[in-house]
């Protein structure tokens, strides 16, 4: 704001607006950054809060290049609550999900139902996190969440391939059991086409996401980590996916939702934390805030600066 003459706003790889700096304000830029103003209506009742499921204290992540990505954040999620993490992509949300999902290294303390989780990578991985009841719908489904060349049924076992229900005996996997399970999941999650033997890459983005969601949600996890649940997903599937996430919350589970879509955060979350530059800039009640305020926090402008 201080050193530029004109400001351009980029969103989803496109220049969406260019304005003269002297004609604009942080508020207007925030709105431009937030983008589409489609308010998704998610039917959800008031949260029935239970005990604290996830406690994060002073979590720090330093990446391979020695850059500090997460700079000491602390928060809690209760049972029956959706905590939404808002923020522009690349402000530490992905690292947070990786650490909680078991495949990122960090310092600090993370407790699940009071039990401390290993963050050093020596005693934890994606398997041990799943065993503890943490399910994870990753931000990048094609890169992390699925093997695109694997068939749908093979992807349903992805991360759960050690599940005793999927084994024929101590040596061999029971592929028929996985196929059968996949058929059921495809039906319940309305995956189209419902063909378990089709390669994951042959499904649309929305249907890939439904396969992952079915895999993770039907495990009935204590905590569901979900990143960008509707990125690249068609409108019809968005509604379906949101409904399933709310259902899990209503079943008394904790949900950590990371999304760059503000309206998604606002309509799903029971509480919103905004991340900027590896820090939580503030927590807001979705009913008592607006996109402009959140947009400012996302840009690193705290209440005092904006005033």
């Amino acid at each position: 704001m201080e050193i530029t003459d004109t400001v351009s706003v980029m969103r989803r790889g496109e220049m969406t607006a260019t304005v003269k700096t002297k004609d604009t304000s942080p508020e207007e830029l925030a709105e431009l950054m937030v983008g589409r103003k489609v308010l998704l209506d998610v039917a959800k009742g008031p949260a029935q809060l239970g005990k604290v499921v996830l406690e994060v204290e002073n979590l720090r992540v330093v990446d391979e290049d020695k850059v500090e990505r997460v700079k000491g954040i602390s928060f809690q999620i209760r049972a029956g609550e959706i905590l939404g993490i808002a923020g522009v992509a690349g402000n530490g949300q992905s690292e947070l999900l990786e650490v909680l999902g078991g495949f990122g290294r960090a310092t600090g303390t993370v407790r699940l139902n009071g039990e401390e989780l290993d963050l050093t990578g020596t005693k934890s991985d994606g398997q041990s996190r799943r065993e503890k009841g943490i399910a994870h719908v990753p931000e990048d489904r094609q890169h992390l969440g699925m093997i695109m060349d694997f068939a749908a049924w093979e992807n349903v076992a992805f991360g759960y391939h050690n599940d005793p229900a999927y084994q024929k005996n101590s040596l061999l996997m029971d592929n028929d059991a996985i196929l059968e399970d996949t058929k059921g999941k495809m039906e319940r999650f309305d995956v189209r086409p419902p063909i378990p033997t089709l390669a994951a890459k042959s499904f649309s983005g929305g249907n890939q996401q439904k396969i992952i969601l079915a895999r993770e949600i039907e495990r009935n996890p204590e905590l569901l980590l979900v990143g960008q649940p509707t990125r690249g997903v068609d409108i019809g599937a968005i509604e379906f996916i949101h409904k399933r996430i709310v259902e899990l919350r209503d079943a008394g589970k904790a949900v950590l939702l990371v999304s760059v879509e503000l309206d998604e955060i606002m309509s799903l979350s029971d509480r919103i934390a905004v991340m900027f530059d590896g820090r939580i800039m503030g927590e807001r009640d979705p009913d008592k805030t607006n996109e402009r305020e959140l947009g400012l926090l996302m840009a690193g402008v705290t209440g005092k600066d904006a005033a």
Partner: protein
Amino acid sequence: MTKLPRWADVVLVPLISLLLAGIISALVILAIGQSPSEALKVMVDGAVGSPYGWGYTLYYATSFIFTGLAVTVAFHASLFNIGGEGQAQLGGLGVALVCLALPWPHWTLALPAAMIGGALFGAAWAAIPAYLQAKRGSHIVITTIMFNYIAAALLIYILVEHLRPPSSMDPASARFGAGTDLPTLHEIPGLSLIFTKQVPANVTLFVALLACWLVWLLLWRTRLGYEIRAFGKSEPAALYAGIKPVRVTMIAMLISGALAGLMSINNVMGESGRLLQNSSEGAGFIGIAVALMGRNHPLGVFLAAILFGFLYQGGAELGLWTSIPIELRTVVQGLVILFTGALDHMVRMMLGLFFRPKARAA
């Protein structure tokens, strides 16, 4: 690119690739002033025209099945094991040490022990590049190539300094005892009716077929195979799923090395009956082509191994009965590798043109 129907992908593409390789080979034979049809006749007669020819073709194929499977297992973990040659030679050392260690009373006892020896030594030779890849990120292609040279040098040293009988000038071990002689196809009741003359193909062929089935089972029916394939497709996704990269890299390479080492029960124990210098004779490298052509599937590896066995034996016959030099078989092999491996996409693209209109109508 148009997606080909499955039958075209599995059957038509390799056949056309082979045909193209055949045509170019024919042109090469023409260019050196020989008759391609005569050459083809000699090759077919010599390699598959008689049970005797088959006895050689199957002997070579047996070796290629093992080395092809070795490349296949590593390939599914996205590891390009070029070190089958060295691993097979070390496997030969393992087999030789086992065979020389005891006065084996019968081959049925000696074979399992020799298999363990060959597999262990082959796996051990693959373990070092695997560890360097898994822990230090040293590229497996570079390290396995280097280990081929180290293996060759190591073997010469061991043969000359330790295994060579004092009276011999030949860099080879002493002959193994009679109790280690594996029955050839000629000596197996029933099969001896077909193979009426002594042939080098031996019971190892059946071990190789069993290995094909076991590798298929491993890759597509076990948790380990699932982890190997998932890791091979995407390392970040494997991490997400809780698959440990170091563990999978190590295990896949150990299995790969063990399979390459197992080859030696065919040539060292089954054929020569002693450990020679360069015992594997390039079979480790041919395994790469076999795996490539066999689409990294055990059934494909089996078929491709038979084809390369045919080329190997047929090429030898060429050198024997015609004035075409034996080196031509290397040319033919090279062309087959070129067309089935490197130019695979070219054939697919050409075929895609034929399949496109149909696909649109459907």
